[in-house]
């Protein structure tokens, strides 16, 4: 974090992320200079910057040491089965023990992992060349059969995989050589390498049904696993990435209570804790020897105005509400600046398909009033909120205040977090939802904005959008894809019944001795894959 800060202040998080990703791939000073100059930066500034970036990278990791890490949840449902993993503690354990065919970097671009390379001509048939000399923790060599098993098991309903919907587009996975796997899809999808880089598609041994031994190819070997209590992993000496991992041992526990987590960090009991509340940040920063690690990601809480019923059926009401967001104040007062302002479309600035050219919608009472009068809505409008959707109660209260100034009476209904998703989300005419970071723009738009999507929150239907979505999925030319995603972002911004005021950041706390953390916008803890990247600076 500290290495990134000067860089981020100069070029912004997105560029700094691209730079770091390039550096991780082994870019030279010259490459970095070219990248920055291509971005229109002056040569002198770019030179200085390239220096900063390289010095950050030049810090040499040290081997050895043991850390204790606390995630934010612990339950008897903790699992080492990649298909069933569902929360950050599961994912963090997954990346310690397993690898995927690909891995997502700081801009969520897929990079080779267990697959040395991947190629396609039509985005429908994909050839993955497996890395040679990779072994599982029990000594068995990685073979195409393991990959086929690991991917195809998601399609079996009996697996009850969280990734079944994603796996259903995969027609077959076959070994086509001693180190080659061919994946055939039912329809073209240029994002297949992204999907295979997500946690659920981690590679396990062919035929595994009991995952409690945690046998994978990952950087650490499992020593102990007690669901709901803790897990202990030790360094995998035979790991295929040279020099990695750095630590000897990681103890991972889940602590549900935020203040208990922060206290455990500050009393020296933990070295890294996940999900720190913005209100605890000052305490961590104020204690010598501790630091904060922020990951800006695509997570958002959104105001849903259903377009098929209630006031949201009138497009002017939707427009009025979108102008009622006092985004600056929400960012400052609710998220304490651990957020970036969003523009009523779901692709965040860290994503490689973010459309920066879309004009920012501002807080504008006059416009809101104009649209409200045009809509002719009067009387109380109920807005359903819940602590289950992060910050939604606070956001609704800020809106309630501003709405009063144009004569709109918002009735904020606060529902308990328990059962919110099954009973209120998707059912209320006007209410809040929360969307976690998705690995790709395609996944996000398919799950939440396609006309027939099960979670089309606002029931916004636009056939043109659906066509674009399908076309962009099949498009392998990056520049053309970018343009398509820009068009889709504009459509959502203007027509969908979704108001997105902010993209929220994840905050982790750690001892200053812990080095090597760099954001991956899938979530906190380096997109949950800190384990093989961090080291202890004695």
């Amino acid at each position, binding site marked *: 974090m500290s290495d990134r800060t000067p860089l981020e202040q100069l070029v912004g998080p997105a560029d700094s992320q691209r730079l770091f990703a390039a550096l991780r791939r082994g870019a030279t000073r010259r490459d970095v200079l070219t990248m920055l100059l291509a971005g229109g930066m002056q040569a002198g500034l770019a030179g200085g910057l390239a220096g900063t970036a390289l010095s950050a990278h030049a810090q040499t990791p040290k081997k050895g040491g043991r850390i204790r890490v606390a995630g934010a949840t*612990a339950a*008897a*449902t903790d699992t080492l089965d990649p298909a069933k993993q569902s929360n950050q503690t599961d994912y963090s354990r997954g990346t310690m023990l397993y690898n995927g065919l690909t891995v997502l970097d700081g801009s969520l671009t897929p990079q080779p992992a267990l697959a040395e390379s991947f190629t396609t001509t039509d985005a429908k048939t994909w050839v993955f060349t497996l890395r040679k000399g990779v072994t599982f923790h029990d000594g068995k060599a990685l073979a195409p059969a393991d990959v086929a098993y690991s991917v195809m098991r998601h399609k079996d309903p009996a697996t009850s995989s969280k990734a*079944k919907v994603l796996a259903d587009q995969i027609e077959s996975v076959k070994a086509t050589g001693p180190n080659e796997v061919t994946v055939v899809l039912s329809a073209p999808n240029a994002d297949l390498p992204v999907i295979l880089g997500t946690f659920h598609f981690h590679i396990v041994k062919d035929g595994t049904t009991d995952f409690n031994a945690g046998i994978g190819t990952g950087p650490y070997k499992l020593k102990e696993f007690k*669901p709901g209590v803790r897990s202990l992993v030790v360094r995998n000496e035979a790991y295929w990435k040279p020099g990695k991992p750095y630590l000897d041992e990681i103890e991972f526990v889940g602590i549900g209570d935020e203040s208990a987590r922060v206290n455990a960090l500050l*009393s020296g009991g933990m070295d890294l804790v996940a999900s720190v509340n913005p209100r605890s940040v000052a305490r961590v920063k104020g204690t010598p020897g501790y630091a904060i690690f922020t990951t800006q990601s695509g997570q958002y809480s959104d105001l849903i105005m259903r377009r098929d019923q209630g006031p949201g059926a009138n497009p002017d009401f939707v427009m009025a509400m979108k102008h009622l967001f006092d985004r600056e104040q929400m960012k400052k007062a609710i998220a304490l600046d651990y957020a970036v302002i969003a523009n009523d479309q779901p692709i965040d600035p860290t994503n490689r398909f973010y459309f920066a050219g879309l004009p920012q919608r501002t807080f504008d009472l006059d416009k809101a009033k104009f649209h409200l009068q045009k809509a002719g809505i009067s009387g109380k409008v109920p807005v359903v909120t819940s602590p289950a959707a992060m910050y939604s109660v606070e956001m609704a209260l800020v809106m309630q205040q501003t709405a009063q100034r144009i004569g709109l009476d918002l009735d904020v209904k606060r529902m308990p977090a*328990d059962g919110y998703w099954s009973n209120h989300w998707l059912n209320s005419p006007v209410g809040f939802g929360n969307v976690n970071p998705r690995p790709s723009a395609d996944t996000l738009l398919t799950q939440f904005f396609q006309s027939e999507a099960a979670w089309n929150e606002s029931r916004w239907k636009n056939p043109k959008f659906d066509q674009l979505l399908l076309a962009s999925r099949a498009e392998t030319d990056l520049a053309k894809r970018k343009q398509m995603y820009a068009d889709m972002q504009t459509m959502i911004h203007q027509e969908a019944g979704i108001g997105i005021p902010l993209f929220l950041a994840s905050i982790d706390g750690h001892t200053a001795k812990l080095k090597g953390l760099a954001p991956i916008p899938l979530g906190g803890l380096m997109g949950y894959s800190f384990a093989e990247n961090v080291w202890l600076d004695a």
Partner: protein
Amino acid sequence: MNLIVLKLLGQRIAIALLSLLAVSVVVFAITAVLPGDAAQEQLGQDATPEALAALRAQMGLDVPAPQRYLHWLGGLVRGDLGTSATTQMPVGTLIGSRLPNSLLLAAMTALFSVPIALTLGIASAVWRGSWFDRAASTASVAVVSVPEFLIATLAVLLFAVKLRWLPALSYVSEIESLGQLLKAFAMPVLTLSCVIVAQMMRMTRAAVIDQLEAPYIEMVRLKGASPMRMVLAHALPNAIGPIANAVALSLSYLLGGVIIVETIFNYPGIAKLMVDGVSQRDMPLVQACAMLFCAGYLILVTLADVCGIVANPRLRHR
């Protein structure tokens, strides 16, 4: 004497079984009223109708509720607590991994708090109205009025974060020496003691004063017994009944009611397991925990009654 105790035990066990049955029906009914079921909770936002149906079938939730209850009851009679709906692990294993922790914490707290509470209670009764009695009573009321989460949080901030004498979390997995045991348990035991010492102390004081004001104590005093003998040999045996009941009530609280302490110190006890079970709608787990707490409570109360009878000469020889 044996006959009285045996008869009492027999009655108690019969009533206990009936209570357990009633509790199981009530718990089952209440959890059925909670919004959402285990499948919905587990899938959360991912709950599409197909996924829900598949998971419900896998968890056995597609069977009507009364049938599920009877099936569970049948298993319980055979000593089978069933399988957790969300983890697919035997409930017995889940509870078995947590129960020893809870019992250890309860035992440590009892070991520490019961002697203190009884000593303070008896001393206050003997010197009732004195400055000592007033100070002890005021202090105990003050301590019991402060919520335990406040005591625990302040203790963590002071002893763990500021002074760094004690760990902020209680690790049971790494205890190898007595020193580590004391360190790990110091703050949880302190917090819990604050809650239960006051109750036990005030009950003890009231019970002993009640006896000390009885006519037979005057007789004891007149025949010239020492104050020590008067209290310990004459008044106390008659007060054991209510005192034992107060102790039993406090200890039953330690078994299942310590969720706040378990949360703040991240202590892997059984109360947290049950709360997890409720939030995940894991019926077999919740039922088993409820049965366990209920059984623990009944056992402690029965023990208290037996204590009262055995200790009291008048009841013993009737």
